[in-house]
């Protein structure tokens, strides 16, 4: 037995469990933070409240405000007003970009501000009187009592108490990377030995650059979501390790073109390094722009047109049916790019800009029409994978932001009907479903890939066969669509579990920043992005392991594919930026007009 084989074999006891430990630490930490944040957010907004005027005795009583308040007679309203002239869901009062806005829920509801009836979103400032039915509410801005150092409602306070845990996770992650890359470098196949120095340098650059970007994030973003970054870092480093393993092993070339084959592998690997570096830099810049400007909100229409355009271009110019079953690749010279990956991001931005608040039915219908058209385009490509991700993401964001349970149920029913029609009309879908159903009965061309992938998963056992000791040759497209099975074969089921948990951590971390009660757009975009990551991962994993019919989605950050990786870093930048947004104006100590009503409301605030 060769020493390299020996090492790879024994390190399996370390590699899979270490990745699992990292995932677990992040999960536990994130879970605690989320629960605390949930508790804090259930509390009302500090420094603002309403004064409700009683008609009977002309006395005032304070009413607490949340970041988003539904006012109405319904029991589920945040502010319940039993009044003849108030509908079940009457108006929304919310904090957006540091200011309070009031918006009637429908055009039929009557809302007055300072005696004037309003029909659309209106900014409310200190001492403005809101009239609903016979009820009068006065907004009180209490920021003159703000103490900058006492802003304990923000998550920074929490993260500082668990900061040590994040640091130890980062250290473990470095250990994981060092062990894996060290092992790969040590056991490098003979053909690549001349490149060993270069590989070492590039690997070190990747990790150092990651640390640098991490530090820069921490410095430049005030509310940097450390956990999202750590989870993503664990994922793309795992991906990088697995892709390095694919790059340097199992080289099969005849002696005359050995040199060019080696060169091709090496440059392919360098390209992966390059994409990671560019992706990280891009994410950093993007997040800074998103966090500090409101540019993204203005891009709603652009994203609407852009998404459709990208899909149309792919439909017309897309190639690649022969190799991948769907023509999603656009060739520019010798390079190929998958525009649908970017169309997905566009979709998410559109989604967020529509559902930043509960939009009136007319707007909802406008979105439904746009979404329907693009959905049909996706099915025509056919990019069922993206369709399968975007549908649940849209539904989840829609449900959470609007609480339209009935409508969600309806859309689900329509979706089920549509998928039945798709099944009937598209032989391509039928083949896939057939392959999936017959998975345990027979091996056929429709399911052989999953069968081979499952064989690999089964060979891996709990902790794997050891890095580089698997047999990716057994599975077509092992480094792309089926990468999860190779991770399981070489690092074990435990590493597979770790990957699922890491994606869930991203979701929880995203939710934590949503819970903080920020403005509607940031909340819905964060929700959309983080749900998209999660869904994509789950569907990819479910597909490669035969739990759901395979759709050819690649596992984010781990699967091979430049466009996909770049798009994922783009999403990461957006996510980190939008979740790091600060309620700037709202919590800045600003000169405000003296309240005319003299009441010691500070004592009331204590009572909440």
């Amino acid at each position, binding site marked *: *037995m060769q020493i390299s*084989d020996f090492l790879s*074999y*024994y390190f399996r*006891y370390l590699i899979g469990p270490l990745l699992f430990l990292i995932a677990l630490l992040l999960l536990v930490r994130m879970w605690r933070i*989320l629960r605390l944040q*949930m508790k804090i*957010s*259930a509390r009302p907004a500090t420094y603002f409240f309403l004064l409700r005027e009683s008609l009977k005795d002309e006395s005032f009583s304070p009413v607490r405000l*949340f*970041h*988003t*308040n*539904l006012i109405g007679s319904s029991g*589920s309203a*945040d502010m319940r007003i039993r009044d003849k002239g108030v509908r079940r869901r009457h108006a929304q009062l919310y904090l957006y970009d540091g200011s309070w806005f009031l918006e009637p829920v429908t055009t039929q509801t009557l809302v007055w501000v300072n005696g004037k009836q309003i029909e659309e979103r209106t900014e409310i400032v200190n001492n403005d009187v809101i009239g609903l039915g016979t009820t009068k509410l006065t907004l009180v801005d209490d920021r003159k009592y703000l103490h900058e150092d006492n802003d304990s409602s923000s998550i920074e306070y929490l993260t500082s108490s668990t900061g040590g845990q994040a640091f130890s996770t980062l250290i473990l992650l470095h250990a994981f990377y060092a062990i894996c890359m060290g092992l790969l470098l040590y056991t490098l196949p003979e053909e690549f030995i001349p490149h060993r120095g270069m590989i070492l340098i590039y690997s070190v650059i990747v990790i150092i650059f990651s640390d640098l970007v991490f530090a820069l994030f921490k410095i430049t973003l005030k509310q940097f979501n450390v956990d999202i970054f750590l989870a993503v870092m664990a994922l793309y480093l795992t991906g990088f390790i697995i892709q390095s393993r694919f790059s340097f092993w199992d080289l099969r070339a005849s002696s005359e073109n050995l040199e060019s084959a080696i060169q091709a592998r090496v440059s392919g690997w360098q390209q992966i390094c390059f994409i990671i570096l560019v992706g990280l830099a891009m994410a950093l810049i993007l997040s800074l722009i998103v966090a500090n400007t409101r540019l993204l909100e203005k891009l709603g229409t652009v994203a609407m047109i852009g998404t459709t355009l990208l899909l149309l271009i792919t439909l017309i110019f897309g190639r690649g049916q022969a190799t991948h079953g769907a023509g999603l690749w656009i060739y520019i010279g010798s390079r190929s790019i998958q525009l649908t990956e970017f169309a997905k991001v566009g979709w998410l931005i559109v989604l967020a800009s529509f559902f930043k608040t509960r939009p009136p039915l007319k707007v909802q219908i406008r979105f439904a029409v746009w979404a329907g058209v693009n959905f049909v385009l996706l099915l025509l490509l056919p990019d069922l994978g993206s369709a399968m991700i975007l549908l649940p993401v849209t539904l*989840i964001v829609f*449900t*959470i*932001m609007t*609480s339209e349970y009935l409508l969600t149920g309806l859309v689900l029913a329509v979706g089920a009907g549509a998928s039945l029609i798709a099944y009937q009309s598209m032989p391509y879908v039928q083949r896939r479903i057939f392959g999936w159903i017959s998975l*345990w009965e027979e*091996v056929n061309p429709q399911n*052989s890939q999953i*069968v*081979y992938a*499952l*064989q690999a*998963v*089964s*060979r*891996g*056992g*709990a*902790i794997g066969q050891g890095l580089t000791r698997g*047999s*990716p*040759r*057994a*599975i077509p497209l092992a480094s792309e669509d089926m990468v999860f099975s190779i991770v*399981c074969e070489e690092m074990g*089921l435990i590493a*597979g*579990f770790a990957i*699922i*948990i890491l994606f*869930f951590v991203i*979701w*929880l971390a995203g*939710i934590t920043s*949503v*819970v903080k*009660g920020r403005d509607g757009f940031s909340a819905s975009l964060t929700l959309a992005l983080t749900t998209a990551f*999660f869904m994509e991962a*789950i569907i990819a*994993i*479910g597909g490669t*392991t*035969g*739990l759901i019919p395979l759709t050819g989605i690649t596992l984010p950050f781990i699967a091979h594919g430049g466009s996909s990786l770049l798009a994922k870093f783009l999403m990461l930048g957006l996510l980190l930026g939008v979740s790091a947004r600060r309620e700037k104006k709202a919590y800045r100590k600003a000169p405000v007009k003296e309240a005319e009503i003299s009441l010691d409301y500070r004592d009331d605030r204590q009572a909440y």
Partner: protein
Amino acid sequence: MRQFLRNLKMTTALLVLFVAVLLVALFIQQKRSTEELSVAAGENKYALQQIYSRAGSISSSDGVVLAHSDEGERAYAENSELARACLHLVGDYTHRLPNSVESIYMQELLGSSRSFLEQLNLDIRGQGFEGNDLVLTVNADLMLKASRLLKDYRGSVVLLNYETGDLLALVNSPTVSPQDVINWENITEGTLFNRALYGRYYPGSTIKMLTTAAFLEDPDQDMDMQVVCLGSEEIVPAGAKETLTPEGHGTVELREAFRESCNAFFGKLAIALGREDFTNKAEDFGFNKDLNLDHFKIAQSLLDLQEPGQGALSWAGVGQPIGQDRITISPMHLAAIAGAIANDGVMMKPRVLLQEIDPLGSVRYTREAEDYFVCCQPGTAADLEELMLEVVDSGTGRRASRAGLKIAGKTGTAEMANEDGEIVVNSLFSGYLISDSHPLAVAVILEGENRDAATVAADMLQYAVSVDIP
């Protein structure tokens, strides 16, 4: 805000549940794949070569290595004749023969059937890379002899120890070398087919053992029943008749009819028994049941009498199905039936795996002799034995008679269509040796126009005794 938070909480709870289900599902999926997907058609040969590079060895009970891995290469029996003889049983690493030891016992050979702690223990001792070694019950010497006897025929030989159920030899002809299978060369029609386990042959007159057993155990039957055999004349319209002795046997009773394999008598017997009694007895002997040879599945032997009328029933009584009737048997099952009669009516569980040994040399599994099922009463078995001895002594199985050996048996011939659709006459022999030191049961099925099955079977038994196996 309250509603928004509630939505978030609900979604989070849902996703937690979702993740939990996914993790459990993944775990189950892995378990299930290990059990059901170890072999799949169209697997990559090079990947398999790599996977098997550390697999354990397979050897015969007499210590001859039939397959082993060395320097990353999987090699098969050194003696090329033996390698060919063992092909259908041992198989090859490319999984072209999905029902072979290499495929069915893949998890054991690779060591992936071990528990985590077992593997950890082996790894600590530095022996964890190797798979487990398997020792089969078959004897290399007997395998070679069987393959030599089969050289000029198409067919199978199965030799069992009827007291333990151990499979001693299982050889099919035609066959090729494992290397040819790996390279996918020189493969001709039918060479990869394991007839002994998966062949579905008409049993012909060998079924008369079962008809007789049913007759002997039926209190309503007259043991002195006599039938007038008119040879080529059908006993009932469209019923059984003699094909080999057109002149007929005259008036016969059981003893003479069994000795001469009289179709008229057994046709009448089947009619007297009725479909139900006949089928029930056959099921006692393992028909219409899923039979296993350790992890191997044996082709189910069928006795499904659908064709109406006495004619069809009489044909069924002589093992020749017509119309809708289906009567088939595999050589392996035929040998097991002979073994059951020899073993006082108790069929032993057939075994092919003798031992599984881990890299440290400790034995993880040893086969233990186990009763499979009771086929008939001991008295019936004794009566049958007497009849079968006479078959070899002075009846249709005279070719199996060997000086100094007490061989009991039953011959059979059956017309059936082969893989190409041509009608061929197969010759069958099912028998055993009455000996305390050599409890051997044998079944031979040869395809094509010959009557050599009895000769091959007796040669096989004689050879086993001469080399003192078992």
